[in-house]
C-alpha cells in the first residue's frame, strides 16, 4: 500500500449505500426541485402587464423622427420641411408624451410609475424563487452529508481541480478523482441545465445559475432604467433641426439614362450611381 498522495492508486472502496442514498438522491432532488421551480414560476408569473396605448404612441412618435432623420433623402424637400416643422414643434411641446403634465419634472418621479415598480417586483420575485430553494438544498447537504465522498471519477485530474471537486473535506493528500458531496451538488447545479432543456424545453425557469448571474449584474446596471422620453424627444428635435436635406431624386434622370446604357457615367452626375 503506497503512501497517500504519491500518485499511486489509492485503495479505497465506497459503500454502495452511499451511491444509493447520497449520490442519486442529491441528483434526483435537484432535478425535481428544478421542475417544481419551473412550474411555480409559471404559476406565479402574473398576466403580462396590460399595454398602454400612450406608451406605444410615445415610442412610435420617436421612431417616426428617427425614420425621418434617416430616410429624408427619399422624399421631396417640401414634404421633408413640413414634417420637420411639425415633429419639432410636437417634440418640444411634449405632444406625444405619455404624461404631458410631467414633462418638466424630469426623471425624479420615474419610480412613481406603477408599471415600472410592478416590473421590478416581478423580477425580484423570480430571483427569490431561484435563490431560496438552492440555499435550502445546499443547507440540507451540508447538514446530512458533510464530508461524504460520493463518487470517483474514471479519469485522472490535476491538483487544481481539488478545490472544485473536494470542497467541504480537508484532506490535502487524497486523490483529486474523489468527489465530495458538496462538490457533487455544485456540479449538478451547473450541469443540469442540459437536462432541464431536454425535459422542460429550452426556455425554462428551472435553472438556478441564471438567477445568480442576474444577481451579480443587478447592482451595477440596475433593472432596465425607464426612459425619459422628454429628453429623448428634445434630442431628436435637435438632430432633426440640423438635418440637411438633399433629395435623392435630384439626379435620377442621369442615373436612369446611365442604368439603361443611354449615357456614359459622368462623375458627379449620379450621386449614388446605379
Amino acid at each position, binding site marked *: 500500500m503506497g503512501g497517500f498522495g504519491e500518485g499511486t492508486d489509492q485503495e479505497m472502496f465506497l459503500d454502495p449505500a452511499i451511491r444509493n442514498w447520497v449520490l442519486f438522491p442529491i441528483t434526483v432532488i435537484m432535478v425535481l426541485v428544478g421542475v417544481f421551480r419551473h412550474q411555480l414560476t409559471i404559476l406565479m408569473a402574473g398576466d403580462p402587464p*396590460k*399595454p*398602454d*396605448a400612450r406608451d*406605444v*404612441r410615445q415610442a*412610435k*412618435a420617436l*421612431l*417616426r423622427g428617427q*425614420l*425621418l432623420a434617416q*430616410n*429624408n*433623402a*427619399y*422624399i*421631396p424637400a417640401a*414634404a421633408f420641411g413640413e*414634417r420637420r416643422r411639425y415633429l419639432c414643434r410636437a417634440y418640444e411641446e411634449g405632444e406625444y408624451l405619455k404624461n404631458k403634465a410631467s414633462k418638466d419634472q424630469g426623471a425624479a418621479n420615474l419610480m412613481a410609475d406603477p408599471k415600472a415598480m410592478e416590473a421590478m417586483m416581478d423580477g425580484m420575485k423570480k430571483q427569490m424563487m431561484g435563490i431560496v430553494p438552492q440555499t435550502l438544498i445546499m443547507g440540507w447537504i451540508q447538514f446530512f452529508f458533510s464530508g461524504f465522498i460520493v463518487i470517483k471519477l474514471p479519469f485522472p485530474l490535476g491538483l487544481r481541480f481539488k478545490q472544485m471537486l473536494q470542497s467541504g473535506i480537508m484532506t490535502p493528500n487524497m486523490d483529486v478523482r474523489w468527489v465530495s458531496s458538496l462538490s457533487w451538488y455544485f456540479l449538478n447545479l451547473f450541469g443540469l441545465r442540459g437536462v432541464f432543456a431536454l425535459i422542460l424545453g429550452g426556455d425554462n425557469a428551472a435553472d438556478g445559475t441564471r438567477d445568480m448571474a442576474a444577481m451579480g449584474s443587478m447592482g451595477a446596471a440596475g433593472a432596465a432604467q425607464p426612459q425619459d422620453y422628454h429628453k429623448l424627444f428634445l434630442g431628436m428635435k435637435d438632430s432633426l433641426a440640423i438635418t440637411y436635406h438633399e433629395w*435623392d*431624386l435630384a439626379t*435620377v*434622370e442621369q*442615373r*436612369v*439614362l446611365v*442604368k*439603361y446604357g*443611354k*449615357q456614359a457615367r459622368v462623375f458627379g452626375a449620379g450621386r449614388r450611381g*446605379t
Partner: protein
Amino acid sequence: MSNAVQLLAEIRQSSERRPFEVLKLAEPLLGSGGGLGTGADAWLAYEQVFVAAIDDGEMELARAVLGRLHKRFGAGSQRVKRLAGMFNEAAGHAAEAKRMYGEMLAADETNVLASKRLIAMLKAQGQLGEATAQLVAYLDTHGNDFEAWLELSALYLRQQLYPQAAFCVEEAILQQPANHYFHLCYAEINYTMGALDVALKEFLRVVELSTDNVRGFYGVRLTADRILEAKRRPKKEQPAWADAAPQPATLERLSELATERLLSVYGAAGAAPKRAAEAWLQQS
C-alpha cells in the same frame, strides 16, 4: 395528407389570400375525420381555413371550425373572439361584430387587429369619412404601420383628396425607401395632381429600382411628353414648376428610352402585344 398540411402552411407563411385553394386542400382533411396536422400548428391551420371559408361564403364550415376553436381556446381568447367577430360580419350582424371588437379594445386598447377590423367594417359599409377619422386616430398611435398608411392613402384617393393621399404615401416611402411600389403610387398621385416634375422623378425612381417596370415606363413616357408640351407654350402660360423640370433634350431622351424599353418588353411577349403597344405609343 401531410403534403396538404405542408401546402397549407406554405400559403399561410406567404400570407397570400387564396381561399379557394385553402378550402380545396382542407376539405378532404376535415372530411376524413382527421385534423389539420398535429400540435400547435393545427390551430393556425384551423384559423386559416376559417378565414378562407368566410371569404368563400361557406358559413356552415366556418361555423364548425369556429366551434372547434372556441372549444379549444375558450371565450377568453382575444384571437378567437376576433374570428367570431369576423363571422358575425360575414353573416351580416354588423352591430354584434362591432360590439365584440369594442370588447376586445376595452380589454386591450393596443389591440391592432381589433382596431383594424373596426375600420375595415366602416369602410365596407361605405362610411368613408368615419373610417378615415378612425384610421387617422389609429395611425396617431401606431405611426410605423406602413400598411395602414397605404390604406389611408387609398381612402383619401376614394374621396379625391390627393394631397392627403400623397402625404400618406410619403410616410410609407420614409419607412421603406427602396420599395418601388410606393414610389409608383406616389408618382401616380403627383401626376394626377399635376405636379409633373415630381411625378417624372418618381417614375424614374421606379424604373431605377425595378428594371423594365412597364407601369413605370408608361409613366415616364406620359409625363416627359406632357412636360415637353408645357415647355413649348409661351413663358407666361407655363406652370410654376416648368423651370425646375429637366432640359427638353433630356426629356426627349427619356421619352425615347421609355418607348424603346416598352417595345422591347412587349416584343418579348409576342407579335400581337408588340403591335398593340406600337399603335398606342404612336398615337399618344
